[in-house]
């Protein structure tokens, strides 16, 4: 039996009242985050939560961690800067599928290839919720919305395949229809030492379709563990990821069994390496003054 945690889930809940539509999947996601953070055990002041813009991007405000509800599509670059500036912070990033894969889509491969120790949680509802229900990059072909009355002509992107092919070390998918599973995934993602991606099928009750709602999800979702998937098997992970849009598979698609060093580790090493041969600060100033005497650099 586990002992009492240093921080209870309620310690991560802010006083701000969520204004999401009643029934929105994001309510479950934030609860899963509270529980995962409680299990991690770090105090709120050691956590920073960055998001873009969207209904889902409101999430940092509902936590007691440092929060930045930033600019549409720019959560990842801001989070990377934050992590580099203070690598001791636990940095979470969150947003919607529009925020992350549309306007912010260009940042995703670079954040992944740099491999900072970030946990990126996308609430993928296949629609732009905040702006009242336009098509998003994960909307399926034929999807009708108020602004696409005859149905989408575009093929959706597959975020799971994308992040796997960019080389993310931890890739998972969950849903608030399975709170136990979602909490475990978020906790595991946070513990993974490197870039971790969790795609959450978080239904939009207002602009989503019936088959995307939690009740429907409960009937069809299938855990990867129940089909015997080994998360260390990268090629199999790619294969399971191709099921996105057809089947709802939950669990860890891929966990790199041999995580490479993170960008911030490499930066620290580089700084230490260069620092060893660097001149003392006073000497640099002396040289600078010598070289610029008379307003001209002596050596140039």
């Amino acid at each position: 039996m586990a002992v009492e945690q240093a921080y209870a889930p309620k310690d991560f809940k802010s006083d701000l009242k969520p204004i999401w539509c009643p029934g929105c999947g994001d309510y479950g996601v934030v609860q899963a985050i509270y529980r995962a953070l409680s299990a991690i055990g770090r105090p709120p002041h050691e956590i920073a939560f960055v998001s873009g813009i969207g209904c889902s991007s409101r999430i940092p405000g509902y936590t007691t961690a440092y929060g930045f509800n930033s600019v549409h599509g720019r959560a990842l670059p801001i989070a990377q800067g934050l992590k580099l500036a203070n690598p001791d912070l636990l940095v979470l990033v969150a947003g919607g599928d529009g925020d992350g894969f549309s306007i912010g889509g260009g940042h995703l491969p670079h954040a992944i290839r740099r491999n900072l120790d970030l946990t990126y949680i996308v609430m993928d509802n296949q629609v732009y919720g905040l702006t009242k229900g336009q098509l998003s990059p994960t909307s399926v072909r034929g999807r009708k919305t108020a602004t696409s009355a005859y149905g989408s002509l575009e093929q959706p992107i597959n975020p799971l395949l994308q992040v796997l092919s960019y080389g993310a070390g931890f890739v998972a998918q969950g849903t608030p229809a399975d709170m136990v599973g979602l909490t475990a995934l978020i906790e595991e993602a946070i513990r993974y030492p490197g870039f971790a991606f969790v795609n959450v099928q978080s239904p939009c009750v207002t602009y989503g379709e019936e088959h995307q709602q939690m009740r429907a999800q409960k009937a069809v979702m299938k855990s990867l563990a129940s089909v015997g998937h080994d998360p260390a098997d990268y090629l199999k992970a790619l294969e399971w990821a191709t099921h996105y849009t057809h089947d709802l598979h939950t669990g860890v698609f891929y966990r790199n069994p041999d995580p490479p060093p993170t960008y911030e580790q490499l930066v620290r090493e580089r700084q230490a390496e260069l620092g060893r041969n660097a001149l003392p600060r006073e000497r640099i100033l002396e040289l600078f003054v010598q070289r610029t005497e008379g307003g001209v650099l002596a050596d140039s």
Partner: protein
Amino acid sequence: MPIRDLDLKTLSLQDALDLATLIEEEARDRYEELAEQMAVHHTPGAEQFFRKMIGVEQHHHEELARRRRLLFGGAPVRVSRTMIFDVEAPDYDQVRQGMSVREAFDAALHAETKAYNFFVQALPQIADPDVRELFEELRDEEVEHQRWVQDEIDRLPPSTAPEGDVSDEPVGH
């Protein structure tokens, strides 16, 4: 099962009482959240009902906490809210903007039924006879709660019309 990191087979009476207290606390907190949601989304009938349920769950919570204090005093709690998941708390997808009072009652009935199912599923795994007795008692109480909610539903006027502002737009964005 809506639990995690918890071995029911080795559950002691102290842990079981703490667990039951947390289950009531979780339900109370959820009704508080749902009442807030209804307040924000101009659905006063459901809001009032959820506020009433806060009191009901708080009462259950206090009863269990009192029993726990009598039996085990201030012994440190070994179970936590991270171990339980919506055991008796209504699911978030049970509510919507403009829901009728009857629908709010249905959400509560669904929650009480979930709690009943939890105790039914847990019982075969329980080894300790005192814990078994407690869980049987809690299971039977859930039947009582269901009956109470059902009676209240039966007393409601027949209309199932939604109330309040039922526009399909999220607010406050």
